């Protein structure tokens, strides 16, 4: 790449350039592949010879073997199958809710940090208000509201879980993005763009945002891991996914009691969450490299 002269940048499309830079980060490429494998496994969970709910209580706590790759749980169900099915919920909830939360956070934080003044005051007070809500009480209140509705689909919908998690976690990215924008909007290149007649939208989207993508992506990877764990916590308050439908968080939680007797029960869901979070992390790393304007424009 060292031979590419500054002039050649215009010849390559921006998208191709970003892609090339992304895949130059080897771990990011590997992470994409891993995440794709996990998603495919979850999507084709039905091809397992076992059912995720069918039980054989007499065949409980079997250690990993050829017939049960990840062993069996306290009700004699195949853990591998349950993890595959669990991935459907956990990956969906993790990816979508953290994306939603970040998107909302970026919107609020960018507007607030860039424009400042009364808009900043209003948006940040709203953010503060959300932050001061004791989460547990909001959840109990919501749970109370939902249980009076005679519609099971509303109580048990993954969508509700996603919306709840996103609406209770967008404040952290919002504050992060605001602080990044506060700093960046005073930088010379922003002043230069403004002097050249660049619109606010152009400045925000093309100049400030790419410069703040790194911390935002890191924050998203953290949100995703938290969302997978929070999802299993929510079911304890009567939201969303109820047993016997497996999720990684709930399998992990149930396994705690059996940690001496059947350590593999906690190991596999833990590893899945670990792999997912690491993968997202590396993808975030790769994206940061790919989007870094300094790297792009110097063509390094």
């Amino acid at each position, binding site marked *: 790449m060292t031979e590419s002269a500054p002039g050649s940048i215009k010849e390559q499309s921006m998208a191709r350039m970003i892609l090339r830079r992304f895949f130059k980060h080897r771990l990011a490429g590997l992470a994409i592949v891993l995440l794709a494998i996990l998603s495919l496994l979850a999507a084709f969970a039905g091809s397992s010879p076992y059912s995720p*709910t*069918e*039980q054989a*209580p*007499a065949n*409980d706590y079997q250690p990993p073997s050829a017939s049960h790759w990840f062993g069996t749980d*306290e*009700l*004699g169900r195949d853990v591998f199958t349950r993890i595959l099915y669990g991935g459907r919920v956990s990956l969906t909830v993790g990816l979508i809710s953290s994306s939603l939360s970040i998107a909302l956070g970026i919107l609020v934080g960018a507007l607030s940090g860039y424009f400042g003044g009364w808009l900043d005051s209003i948006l940040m007070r709203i953010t503060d208000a959300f932050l001061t809500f004791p*989460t*547990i009480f909001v*959840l*109990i209140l919501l*749970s*109370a509201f939902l*249980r*009076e509705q*005679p519609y*099971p689909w509303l*109580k*048990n919908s993954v969508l509700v879980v996603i919306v709840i998690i996103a609406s209770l976690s967008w404040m952290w990215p919002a504050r992060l993005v605001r602080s990044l924008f506060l700093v960046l909007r005073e930088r010379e290149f922003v002043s230069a763009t403004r002097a050249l007649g660049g619109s606010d939208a152009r400045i925000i989207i093309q100049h400030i945002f790419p410069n703040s993508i790194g911390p935002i992506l890191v924050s998203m990877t953290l949100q995703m891991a*938290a969302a997978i*764990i*929070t999802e*299993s*916590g*929510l*079911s*304890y*308050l*009567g939201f969303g996914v*109820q*047993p*016997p439908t497996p999720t990684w*968080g709930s399998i*992990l*939680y*149930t*396994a*705690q*009691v*059996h*940690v*001496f*007797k059947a350590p593999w029960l*906690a190991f596999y869901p*833990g590893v899945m969450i670990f792999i997912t979070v690491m993968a997202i992390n590396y993808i975030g790393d790769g994206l940061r490299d790919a989007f870094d304007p300094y790297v792009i424009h110097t063509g390094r």
Partner: protein
Amino acid sequence: MKVKLFTLFVLSGLILSSCGGGSGTQTPGATQASTAAPAATATPEAGGGGTVSLIIPEEPTTLNYFAADAAIVRQVAEATAMTGLDTIDQNGEYQPVLTTELPTLDNGGLSQDYLTVTWKLKPDLKWSDGQPLTSDDIKFTWEVLSNPNSGALSGAGGFDLIQSVDTPDPLTAVLSYSSPYPAYLSQFAYGLLPRHAAGAPEDMINWDWDRKPIGAGPFVVTDWQSGQSITMGRNPYYYEAGKPYLDQLVFRIVPEPAAQTAMMMQGEGQVHLWPGELPDEYDSLLQGKASQVLVPGIWNMAIDFNLSAPFDGDSGPTPPHPILGDLLVRQAIASAIDYDTLIHDVEKDSVYTSTNPFEYGWSKCDLPRPFPYNPMKAMQLLEQAGWVVGTDGIRVARGALYAKDGTRLSLELQGYTNFDPLQNTEEFIVENFKAVGIEARIQNYDFSIIFGTYADKSPRMIGDFDMLIFDRGFGIDPQEYVANAYRSGNIPSESNQNGANYFRWVNLTADELLKTAGSHFDQATRKDAYCQIAQQVNTDLPQVYLYLFQDGYGFANNLTGYTVSTWGSMTWGVQNWQYKE
């Protein structure tokens, strides 16, 4: 209902600690050092002395037994503030404690018309602050527990029947009842309240006393570190000379089961409440350091059916539930459950078979299961009731009694969260139901919602549920609990918000039998009435009984003198414990 109140915030912490293998945070040496000091200060007459650590899974919100209904409260409070006039021993017999003798017909303590009870206190009794304990404190206890605004949730049964308490002298209390109360001996078995150190009766749930009680029990709270530990020292004024033998109790709050067992392994705990492991596994993990003792519990697991339509905006017994209103459907559900596999393989024989509400104590009724496991019969009953198999295997109504044609045989099964044995049972019976074409959707809520009040719109209170699964239990005398649960007048409603007839069951025979059981003093007559009520339950099927829990306690092998009892908590008889390091 031994459940850990659970918050979202602790979840991630729990998971992290499980990933860490639940290893203890302190070295065993640290505990030994801390126990050595108090041992040196032990008074000569106090046995071996020493400090005993008790591991409990959750923190009690109060140590006032009467102000709480969570099982954890008694486990701790019994060591300090629950020493009363009498107690119930491990055989289910009343034994005098602070009274010289139990008032009975024979000794004249109970009048011939059953309306007057005379309690005599032992002489020279003192509260743990050194103040004299007199008959006026018996009167005060009645004033508090008979006050409808006291907020009492436990142990207040029959106090409204006491019209007056006379105290002719400091050792004598004469109680006048408006109508006979057969369970009169149980009323003062859970502790007395001191007039000089408590507060206004209507303010009971807010007393400072609730967290630092002045009691007549063997120990006194000396320190309470929220979320960590509760420490108790000896009560120097305890009524039995030379007891308690121990110098100090430390209740350590450890929510995570694996961490609890790890602490027992490292000798950081001597008593372990409700271990997560079954006895065999526990004993082999603890390798001679401690072992688990099981005692039949009082918590009786059942599925309650809502006989009335949910979400109809009224909590009363009409109109009937579109699906469960039909007795044939309830019989089919009862026949669909594989009880043997549930008890032996799912619950690993850690529970006993239970077929009816009366499974322990003197009122125990040995009844056969009304509808043993028979999936073929379940399917026949459903066909007969007008439910035919639909395209996806779940039945739909065609000519059913109340349900419109085309209604799916789909029911919600509500339970409470964070209690593995319950969840395993739910998951198992949902599969049982599926096998005969019934869809059951598990919907678990936090403990506080499932057991919430009418004002909180708890589903069981306002009648907005299909099936509920939880464990219920009563003390030595069933009357108060059973009358509240089965009397047709006790269906929870706007005007009767404490009713516990969650099934919305109306059975006039049961009403009459409850009257008989509640007004007779002859135990045989009462037992007969209770067993007939059980028959009515098993005929009408407002509920189906599954199994009875046992309470498990882990005790270190160098702790002696403990007694486990169905009727007491872990700390019942703690004054007799002795510990050798």
